[in-house]
C-alpha cells in the first residue's frame, strides 16, 4: 500500500470538500483497502466516511418506500424488519453477501461502488486487460467467471455488486452528493461500461459520493435466487432478482435483473416480456429463463453460465410465487 494522507470526515459537507481529485472515499474498507494493498488503487488521499453519522440509518416503510443511507452497514440492513418483510429480494441477497465480519464492516455505498473482482483487474492489468500485442487477456485467458452478455465489447468482467441487482429490480433510486450539490438517479444509472483502462465503470461525477438509496413502496412480490459454489463465504456465480406486480393472478409488470453475466447488472427485458401477462408456474418461469438466454454469447470457458442463467431466473420467479419446485 502506498502512503496517503488521511482525512477523517465527520459530515457529508466536509467529506465532499475533502474528496479532491486523487482522493478515495473509504467506508468499510473491505474492498478499497485490499485494492490499495495490491497497488490496484493508490489514492493520494483517503477520506474516511464511516464516522459520518448523517450517512447511516434506514427510514420509511413498505407502504411509502424505504430509504437506506449509504453508510448503513449490511448487518443493519439484515436487521431491518421492513427490508426483511417487504423486500425479500434485497434481504436474501444481503444475507448471502460475504461473511459476518464483512457485513459488520461493509456499507451499502461501498457495496454498490466496489470494483470488479476480475482476477486480471486485481492482478493489475486493468478492467480491459490487454497484452502489449493487443490480445484481450480475459478473452484469451481464464474467463470462467466472465460475462456472457455484451461480449462483443471489451469489458468482459462481471459487475461485482450483488446488492445492485435486487435494488435495480425494485426500481430503487440513488441520491448522490458532490461539489455541485445533490442529484437523484436510477441505481442502474450509476454504472457504465468502460472501453479502455482509463475509463471508469461508474457514471458518477468527480467528487460525488452516494448519500442514500430509496426503494419505492412494495407492491407485488420480489425474490432473489443465487447459484454459488461454496455455502460459506463466496460470490454468486449467477444470481437473479425479480420484482413483479400483478393484476389478479397474472403478472402485469416485471423487472428481472441478473448478476454475473455482464459488466453491469443485467436487466433482462426478454425475460420481463416473457413473463408478462402470465401466471407464475414452473413452465412460464422456465420460458422466461429461456427467453433471457437468447443473445448470450459466452466466452471460451463460461458456457455453463447460460444454463445457470436460465435456472436462476426460473427459480427467482418461482420463489416469488412460493414454489421451490427444486426442493420437492
Amino acid at each position: 500500500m502506498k502512503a496517503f494522507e488521511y482525512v477523517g470526515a465527520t459530515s457529508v459537507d466536509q467529506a465532499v470538500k475533502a474528496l479532491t481529485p486523487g482522493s478515495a472515499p473509504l467506508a468499510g474498507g473491505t474492498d478499497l483497502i485490499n485494492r490499495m494493498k495490491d497497488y490496484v488503487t493508490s489514492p493520494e488521499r483517503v477520506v474516511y466516511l464511516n464516522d459520518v453519522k448523517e450517512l447511516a440509518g434506514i427510514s420509511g416503510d413498505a407502504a411509502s418506500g424505504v430509504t437506506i443511507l449509504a453508510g448503513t452497514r449490511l448487518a443493519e440492513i439484515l436487521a431491518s424488519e421492513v427490508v426483511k418483510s417487504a423486500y425479500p429480494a434485497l434481504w436474501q441477497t444481503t444475507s448471502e453477501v460475504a461473511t459476518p465480519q464483512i457485513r459488520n464492516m461493509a456499507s451499502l455505498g461501498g457495496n454498490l461502488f466496489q470494483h470488479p473482482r476480475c482476477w486480471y483487474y486485481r492482478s493489475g492489468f486493468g478492467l480491459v486487460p490487454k497484452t502489449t500485442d493487443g490480445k484481450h487477456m480475459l478473452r484469451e485467458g481464464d474467463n470462467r467467471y466472465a460475462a456472457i452478455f455484451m461480449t462483443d465489447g471489451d469489458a468482459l468482467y462481471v459487475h461485482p455488486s450483488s446488492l445492485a441487482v435486487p435494488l435495480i429490480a425494485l426500481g430503487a433510486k440513488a441520491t448522490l452528493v458532490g461539489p455541485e450539490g445533490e442529484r437523484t438517479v436510477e441505481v442502474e444509472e450509476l454504472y457504465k461500461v468502460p472501453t479502455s483502462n482509463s475509463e471508469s465503470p461508474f457514471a458518477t461525477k468527480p467528487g460525488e459520493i452516494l448519500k442514500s438509496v430509496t426503494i419505492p413502496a412494495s407492491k407485488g412480490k420480489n425474490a432473489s435466487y443465487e447459484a454459488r459454489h461454496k455455502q460459506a463465504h463466496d460470490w454468486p456465480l449467477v444470481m437473479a432478482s425479480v420484482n413483479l406486480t400483478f393484476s389478479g393472478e397474472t403478472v402485469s409488470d416485471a423487472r428481472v435483473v441478473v448478476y454475473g453475466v455482464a459488466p453491469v447488472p443485467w436487466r433482462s427485458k426478454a425475460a420481463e416480456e416473457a413473463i408478462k401477462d402470465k401466471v407464475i408456474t414452473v413452465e412460464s418461469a422456465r420460458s422466461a429463463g429461456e427467453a433471457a438466454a437468447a443473445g448470450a454469447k459466452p466466452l471460451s470457458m463460461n458456457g455453463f453460465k447460460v444454463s445457470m442463467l436460465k435456472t436462476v431466473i426460473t427459480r427467482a420467479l418461482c420463489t416469488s410465487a412460493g414454489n421451490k419446485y427444486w426442493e420437492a
Partner: protein
Amino acid sequence: MRDNVTDPNAASRRDFLRGSSVAAATAVLTQTAQVGMDEAAAEALATQQISAQSGTISVTLQVNGKALKTEIEPRSTLLDVLRHRLDVTGPKRVCDRGSCGACTVILDGQAVYSCTTLAISSQGKTIRTLESFDTGEGGVPHAFHQNDGLMCGYCTPGFVTACQALLEKNPNPTLEEVKKGLDGNICRCGTYVGVIQAALDAAKAIKV
C-alpha cells in the same frame, strides 16, 4: 518525526494535479482517477480547510481496556499495528485481504477483520482481542480447548473471537446459526467439527 497535520494548501497538491494524468494512465482505473474536473475547480476545492494527516502519527488505541500509545502511518492496518507495534499477537495475519478471519477483533462490539481496518480510524473505539476473554470454564477459549477445536491453532484466535462476538449477539444460537456466524473464518487443519461443538458448548456454559 513530521508534524502530523499537513496543510492541504501546500504545493504538493498542485504538483499532484499536474501529475494526475500520468497516474490515471498507469495506475489502472480507480475511482480517484476519474479526473474530469478542471484544474481551477480542483484548486478551488483544495483551498477549503480540511485537516489531513500524513507521515508518522502518534495515536492512542483502546485495546483490551488499556490505552496504548504508539506511532503509526495512516496506511497502517489495525492488525499490523497490534502485531508489529503493540505486540498484541493474538490476532493473526493469514490472508491479509479480509477473507480468512484469522485477524478478527471486536471493534465497538462488532466482529471485524483488522487486516482491512485502518488503525488511524480505530482511535476512540473499543478494541477487544481474544487475549481479553474469560479463560475460565465459562469462557469461549475453554470450550475450544475441551472440544479440541484447534490443531495448529493459527486460525483459532479468529474463530474464538468470531464465536465470542456471535454469542454476545445471539446467546442461543442454533447449529445453523453457529455455522453462519463462523462463515467468515477458515481453518486449514480442518477443525470445524470441534469448533462448532465448542461454540454450542460455550453458549451453554455462558448461560449457566
